[in-house]
């Protein structure tokens, strides 16, 4: 009887989880993008804010320029395909980073480099299953379970997505490690219009093990309608980006 209901209700969704994830991914990425954002690391006794500008073209190319704090201003990270470069303006030196750098925390935050620049694919690297419908802060969302494919080189073993049914936004994402333990929760705290689309403006990453720790990412500008020439993602341009 129960399985019948489940069968019936799941056909009611009439939605392919892969298509939902794909659509949400497409909306968040765009072929090309420009963003201005600030990231605040919040701890019980202190917090630190880093401001940056970022440019991306597909998932292969991205460029991040640090604009604050003063100490790190002008530092650039360039990713082209599998290669990552760091430009240090004070000594005018480009340094190629080891590929293993990608799994590391981004400037001490609760985001990894991979979260920000590599974008291991939620579409390609996982198997998808629709496991329910929920309401979060008055918004209806699909709850989708993602299990990492065996051969995928990803950080997480399992990811639970909550995708807004109206705007295809990730409202809440739960990251589980390979042992199945919940590690991080990412939530969209404020939703609004950015570059002509309805998108999350403030996103909070919360490590489950440290409830008093969090990292807040706020978008001041985000535009997917930009055209960024391929030559902007070169070590030559990395040295002059402002």
């Amino acid at each position, binding site marked *: 009887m129960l399985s019948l209901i489940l069968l019936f209700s799941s056909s009611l969704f009439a939605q392919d989880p892969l298509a939902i994830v794909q659509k949400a991914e497409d909306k968040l990425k765009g072929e090309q993008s420009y963003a*201005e954002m600030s990231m605040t*690391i919040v*701890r019980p006794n*202190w917090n*630190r*804010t880093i401001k940056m500008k970022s440019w991306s073209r597909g998932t292969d190319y991205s460029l991040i320029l640090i604009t604050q*704090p*003063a*100490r790190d*201003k*002008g530092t650039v990270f360039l990713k082209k*395909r*599998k*290669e990552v470069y760091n430009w240090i303006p*004070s*000594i*005018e*030196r*480009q*340094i*190629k*980073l*080891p*590929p*293993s*750098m990608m*799994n*590391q*925390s981004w*400037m*001490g*935050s609760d985001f990894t480099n991979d979260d920000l620049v590599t974008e291991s694919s939620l579409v390609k690297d996982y198997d998808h299953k629709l496991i329910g419908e929920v309401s979060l802060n008055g918004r209806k969302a699909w709850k989708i379970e993602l299990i990492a494919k065996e051969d995928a080189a990803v950080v997480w073993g399992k990811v639970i997505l909550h995708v807004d049914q109206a705007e295809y936004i990730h409202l809440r994402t739960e990251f589980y490690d390979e042992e199945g333990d919940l590690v991080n929760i990412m939530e969209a705290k404020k939703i*609004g*219009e*950015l570059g002509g689309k309805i998108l999350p*403006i403030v996103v909070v990453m919360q490590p489950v093990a440290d409830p008093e720790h969090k990292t807040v990412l706020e978008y*001041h*500008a985000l535009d997917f309608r930009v055209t960024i020439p*391929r*030559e902007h993602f*070169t070590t*030559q341009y990395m040295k*002059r980006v*402002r």
Partner: protein
Amino acid sequence: MLVFISFGAAAQEASPWELSGYLKYLGSYSLVNEQFIPLEQQAATATSSFDQQLHNRFDLRYYGGPWSAGIGMRNRLFQGASPEQGDSFYKLLDDDAGLVGLSFLYWKSDRVLMHTIFDRAWLQYEKDKWSFRLGRQRINWGMTSVFNPNDLLNQYNFLDFDYEERPGVDALRVQFFPNFSSQFELALAPLNGSMHTAALLYRNNAYAYDFQLITGVYDEHFTAGGGWAGSIGGLGFKGEANYYLPFNDKGEEVLVGSTDIDYVFTNGIYLSLGYLYNQSAAEGLGVMGFNSLSDGQVLSPKNPFIFRHTTVLSLSYPFNPLISGSLTSMYSPDGNSTIVFPSITYSLSTNLDVLLAGQFFLADNQQATDQYDWFVQSFFARLKWSF
């Protein structure tokens, strides 16, 4: 609606001028093991010394379309062991190796010194695939982490950690970028005296490896070399080397080469392991090599460090977003010479950082006991305000 207002503010036209810099206080305390010093010189050598400096820097940049310009001004006020050294220190400090003298020692006494140097002063023009830069600038060609034989123009002293920007060179640099991955770079640096450098670099990228070839003239030697930066799995793998052939019998044939691997572990520890071969360094110098370094011997591309063989191990670890630590250690089989260089930084507030560091030099005491012992211990404390 609020969102749009904040966008408007962010989209303001930026000023073409940018000013940045810092103010630092650095205190250092050093101990010298007198057993390493020949008896006749012991009386003249201080076994402990204290030195402090206030260090200010301004970096002014202008960006106006194809034109850009930069000026870097370094101001330091010394008190303690440095001014007490007298003439030898004044000379070292006020020695501007460039074509144009931009070093000013305007307060000179055995108690206090005040010195200003402009170590960047350049004008740049960029058009399409070309870039021209004239003036005092840093030209970095090195690829490996610590020792860079390919840096024909801007060698630096790794142990001089407080000079974060490193010195500049008076040069003309022309860059040409035929496509997204390749570049040609010509650097002409006529220095004071006989030391002229003229070199051409070609760099390209294939199979996720950067590689470069260098040829040129350095201080009456013909030089050719090359380098690469790539990876093996998650491991970074880099290397570079230069070979020198003298024009006349005053010079010598020399090979200088370095390589290193680096890796970041999942717990955040960064590890790098490297090696430098420097044929210019005399063998059997042992601890005397340290002396030549502390005497302020200017390291050159042809002689980038004091030992024939040097291995370097570097570790760094961010304990949390405020505190990070690093440990670099160098070892040469020459007299078991060892340098250990630990440091820790702590962010007091957004723009205020504290650094605590030590530099420890150890070696076999060939002067007296023949035992492995410490020779020099230095301790540093630094407060830095960035703007």
